């Protein structure tokens, strides 16, 4: 393999890793605060691409506007899902909310099939992202720079929200103990809604960039990225945001490199993530950066 080809693959890997990281954060944040795997997260991701698609294709909005609207709508969708499907089960056994999450996931995927149709749609790709850039003998389009850059900016912003704002502090406190957090005058429900809004908005950014990258969207596209990013979150240590980002990058990069170095295994591309999941659960069940098991008081 020449250096150029390796760099080409590295660019692919970083891009895919960025997308996985954005999606994995949503899983890990929701788990952190509710101890719930939000299986609907992949479908939230899928629907965000349709919001953007309809914004550009049907409502003929300028792409900048359409994308922003799609992100806002997706954030609202996340909040509504929590209100409707998880909040009523807040005091129920945790398995109930998990089942509800799986139900929402199926519901949305199938609603997607009915409403959007099963035939894949072509995602609008603004030419600005397709400008070819040549760097060190590697030719890539601008999008390959935009995705990691935007991801980095969002991670900084997220870090700021979680560690430097009142809302972030409320989220971190609620993560430990709902009752006591309420006794400090914090509206825990609001903190949870914001968590869902942030996670879903990041999924929407990931979804839109996914559309820009792969050009095609369909109602089942949430399934595999959803599962893989769930694995990325577990791999990094579920509940830990840095862990989710790390897990996302390792998974995205690993997947691309597996195919690059061992083309014979290209068919096992999707299996890679699951093998990683099995290994991490065997070797280090709390994930790379996960805390040791703690009991929620």
């Amino acid at each position, binding site marked *: 393999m020449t250096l150029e080809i390796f760099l080409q693959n590295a660019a692919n890997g970083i891009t895919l890793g960025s997308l996985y990281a954005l999606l994995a954060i949503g899983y890990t944040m929701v788990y952190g605060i509710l101890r719930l795997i939000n299986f609907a997260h992949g479908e939230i991701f899928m629907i965000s691409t349709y919001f953007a698609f309809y914004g550009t294709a049907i409502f003929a909005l300028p792409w900048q506007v359409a994308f922003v609207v799609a992100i806002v709508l997706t954030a609202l969708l996340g909040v509504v899902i929590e209100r409707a499907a998880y909040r009523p089960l807040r005091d129920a056994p945790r398995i109930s909310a998990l089942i509800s999450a799986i139900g929402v996931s199926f519901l949305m995927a199938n609603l997607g099939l009915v409403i959007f149709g099963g035939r894949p749609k072509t995602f609008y790709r603004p030419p600005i992202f397709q400008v070819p850039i040549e760097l060190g003998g590697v030719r890539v389009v601008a999008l390959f720079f935009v995705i990691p850059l935007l991801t980095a900016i969002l991670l900084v912003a997220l870090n700021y929200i979680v560690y430097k704002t009142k809302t972030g502090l409320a989220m*971190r406190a609620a993560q*430990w*103990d709902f009752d006591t957090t309420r006794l400090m005058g914090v*509206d825990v429900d609001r903190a949870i809604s914001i968590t869902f809004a942030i996670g879903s908005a990041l999924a929407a950014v990931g979804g839109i960039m996914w559309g820009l990258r792969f050009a095609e969207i369909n109602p089942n596209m949430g399934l595999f990225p959803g599962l893989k990013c769930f694995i990325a979150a577990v791999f990094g240590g579920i509940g830990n945001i840095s862990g989710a980002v790390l897990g996302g990058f390792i998974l995205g990069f690993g997947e691309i490199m597996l195919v690059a170095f061992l083309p014979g295994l290209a068919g096992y591309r999707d299996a890679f993530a699951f093998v990683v999941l099995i290994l991490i659960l065997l070797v280090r069940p709390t994930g790379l950066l996960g805390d040791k098991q703690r009991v929620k008081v």
Partner: protein
Amino acid sequence: MLDTNDAFDANGAPGTDSAPSADLPALACESVTMRFGGLTAVDGFNLRVPKGALYGLIGPNGAGKTTVFNIVSGVLRPSAGAVKLFGVDVTGLSPDRIARSGIARTFQNIRLFRNLTVLDNVLVGLHLRREANLAQAMLALPRHRAEETQMAATAAQLLEEIGLAGVSHYRASALPYGRQRRLEIARALATKPAVLLLDEPAAGMNPAETEDLMRLITDIRNRFSLTILLIEHEMKVVMGICERMTVLDHGDTIAEGTPDEIQRNDRVIKAYLGGGAVARA
């Protein structure tokens, strides 16, 4: 927060001079009853804690003391009866709204945010009194930052006053037990309560620590012009610092009065020595 009730701030916030009329208790429970299924944990509980008092709530294990605290702080909704803060009914409000109206508490088994630093624990409480929301935090950066700096200063000062200066960047879980108790009190004070509920603050402390704690409690009562309601097992603590107290046994109020009166009360002695069971049988 949007729904802070002005009536509470006018009456309840410490430092305001508009003292409510003398006969209006800072905290009152009126015929509060709590049933869990067939078990009546608290039955027709009445309590009047005057403003500025250091009031004790005592009783043997299972008497219903902590249940009363859970009702007053909004963790439990009573089956019947009312809780009033300076005459304003707060019965059944959610815990965050009760906290905002001016009641703070600590726990028998310490419930700090063990994953956060000492400073952050206090900041969670302080944030309650602050207006800036997430959007403002993201957009109005300079103003937000100035506010943050000021809050950190307030928190540091509070930690200093409570004797926790110098450990503000430790994880709460890293503190020794006695200091965790102090931190819990500091965190409660950060919400600027009018009424502070202390649930067995001396539990698990050695005599020297208990001595320090008693000083701390009377001290903060004066310095923060608080009304304090205290649950305690350690008789020495209650008798030493409380002006009045109520004694609970099996959910019933069996006595109410000054420490002297309580110490001479037959029903209290029976309840504590276990004779109560015989008397009831």
